[in-house]
């Protein structure tokens, strides 16, 4: 082989090896695989999170629910995001992911927003025009904007790239940026939440998974029917919630109990509450429809609650009693 052909051959070999390395790097991308409904970027959420929730902002804002109940329905996280950064969630954000610990604390909550962000423009906006004063700081090579949240401790917003921003308490944001710069995926080490996420089919408008700590504030027992002896609520080990808002409000809740008997007990209790709801129909006929829309079942140690509420029903429920009398069905003819 002549020298020149050798040079060309070596060059092509370098290209080939580099291409293989690039393809191989794809498999090394730790955030490559989405887990259930959680996109790869969500793996930056903290490992000690006890719940993770996600909202498909585009589907949410396009839903009849948002259009009808916008004022009440806009999540706190979106309001916070707009106030701090100037981002218009309805326009710029595709998804919001939230993780946290119900017990709170300094690093309790952190949110990741996915969308399309003009990071330079937004940075300038935050520094100069934000409703809340922010100071820029460099953390792990990323620019973070720190807000004074008063008694809650400092909050921060940082752009990881032009599609991802992280927001939350300063320690939580720092932790996320540190993970990103090291190529780490902390949430992946939370086996419990990972297992729950894998059970959730992607595509829901909103979803949430959490372990038993999510329900730690729930009472251990409820009063028995008719004022009888209190009924002990079986402990839930985990909870999965998914929901859609188009064409109706649909909700699906799956709770894991320690065993089948506990699941059956819980289902019975829930059915009891649904029955009670139905009995309120005399005061508000819509409650009967509401009760009819809810079904409770069990499967091994899982309790499944599903509900489908048409918007008309929700509107009727939302109306005042007087207005309901005016807008309700006409009284029967004498």
């Amino acid at each position, binding site marked *: 082989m*002549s*020298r*020149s*052909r050798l*040079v*060309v051959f070596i*060059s*092509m070999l*370098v*290209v080939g090896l*580099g*291409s293989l*390395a*690039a*393809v191989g*790097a*794809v498999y*090394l*991308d*730790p*955030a*490559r695989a989405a887990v259930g409904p959680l996109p*790869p970027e969500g793996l930056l959420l903290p490992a000690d999170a006890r719940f993770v929730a996600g909202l498909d902002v585009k589907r949410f804002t396009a839903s009849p629910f948002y259009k009808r109940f916008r004022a009440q329905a806009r999540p706190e996280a979106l309001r916070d995001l707009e106030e701090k950064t100037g981002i218009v969630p309805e326009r710029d954000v595709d998804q919001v992911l939230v993780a946290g610990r119900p017990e709170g604390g300094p690093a309790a909550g952190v949110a990741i927003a996915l969308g*399309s*962000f*003009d*990071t*330079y*423009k937004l940075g300038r906006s935050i520094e100069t025009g934000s409703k809340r004063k922010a100071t820029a700081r*460099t953390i*792990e*090579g*990323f*620019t973070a904007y720190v807000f004074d949240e008063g008694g809650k401790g400092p909050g921060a917003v940082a752009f990881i*790239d*032009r599609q991802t921003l992280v927001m939350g308490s300063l320690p939580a944001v720092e932790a996320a940026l540190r993970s*990103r*710069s*090291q*190529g780490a995926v902390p949430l992946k080490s939370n086996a419990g939440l990972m297992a729950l996420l894998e059970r959730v089919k992607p595509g829901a408008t909103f979803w949430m998974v959490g372990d038993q700590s999510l329900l730690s504030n729930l009472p251990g027992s409820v009063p028995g029917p008719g004022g009888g002896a209190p009924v002990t609520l079986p402990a839930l080990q985990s909870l999965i919630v998914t929901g859609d808002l188009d064409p109706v409000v649909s909700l699906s809740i799956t709770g894991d109990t320690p065993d089948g008997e506990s699941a059956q007990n819980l289902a019975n209790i829930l059915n009891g509450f649904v029955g009670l709801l139905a009995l309120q129909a005399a005061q508000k006929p819509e409650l009967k429809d509401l009760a009819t829309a809810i079904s409770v079942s069990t499967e091994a140690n899982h309790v499944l609650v599903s509900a489908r509420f048409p918007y008309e029903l929700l509107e009727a429920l939302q109306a005042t009693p007087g207005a309901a009398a005016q807008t309700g069905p006409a009284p029967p003819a004498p």
Partner: protein
Amino acid sequence: MSALPGPAAGEAPPRDTTRPLAFLPAARGVFGLALEGMVWSRRSLLMAVLLGLPVVFALLYRGFLVAKVPARVTGLDLYAIIVAVYYVRNVLPLAALFYATSLIADEVEGRTLTYLLTRPLPRPAILAGKFAAYLGTTLALTLPALVATFLLLATARGFAGIGTAVPELFRDMGVVALALASYGALFTLLGVVLRRPVIPGLLFLFVWELVVHIPGYLPRLTLTGWLGSLVHHQPAEEGLAGLFQRQVLPVGEGLVVLLAASALFLALSVWVFSRREYVMEQ
């Protein structure tokens, strides 16, 4: 003195001396000869420096990150700028200009064209072999630098996010090859038609190709318009977006136009070269 030897027993059958060599073997022979002169030349040393400069940029960027200097652009954005602005719009056309205009001119100036013209070679094969050597040389200089730059910048912050970027690398390699082929074909034509093709080539690159910035139909009459449209790096940042081409032409159409233009320019070059007389005086 002994007669010159003929083919030994068991070797290839005697040559067909009634026809010129077939196109492919002829082009392959010229390719081998031309490659030797092209790869090991001062021109290639200069081009290697220019084409390899982005690797230095990438290493500097990595250095800034290690020093925790905040970067206003991400690694992938910097890679996009390097591909679309440095390579496709500037360095590759210049490389094509300086190599392709000289394919025949170098042989004429060096007075070695006589040796090629007095072999049983079809003239189209001579030009094809030289063009292939030009492509081989420039790709050998460019692609490793492109791949190295990509790997350095895409992994600047770990492997996160590289999954979506890798297909862009392969697309960019194709665009680089297409840029070298299309500009090379055009400048080959200039080189065989004009006595001094470099100035008209520079005028084409830095005057005519600027019409890509004029809205409307004119960008379709430029090579950079089509090539820029194939390079789909469009960062959301307002500050960077101005570096990139505003009017994006259809990709499928771009591929067809560029390939057809390359073929047309080469065909015209072959036609002119086949009919031209080359007089080399002492």
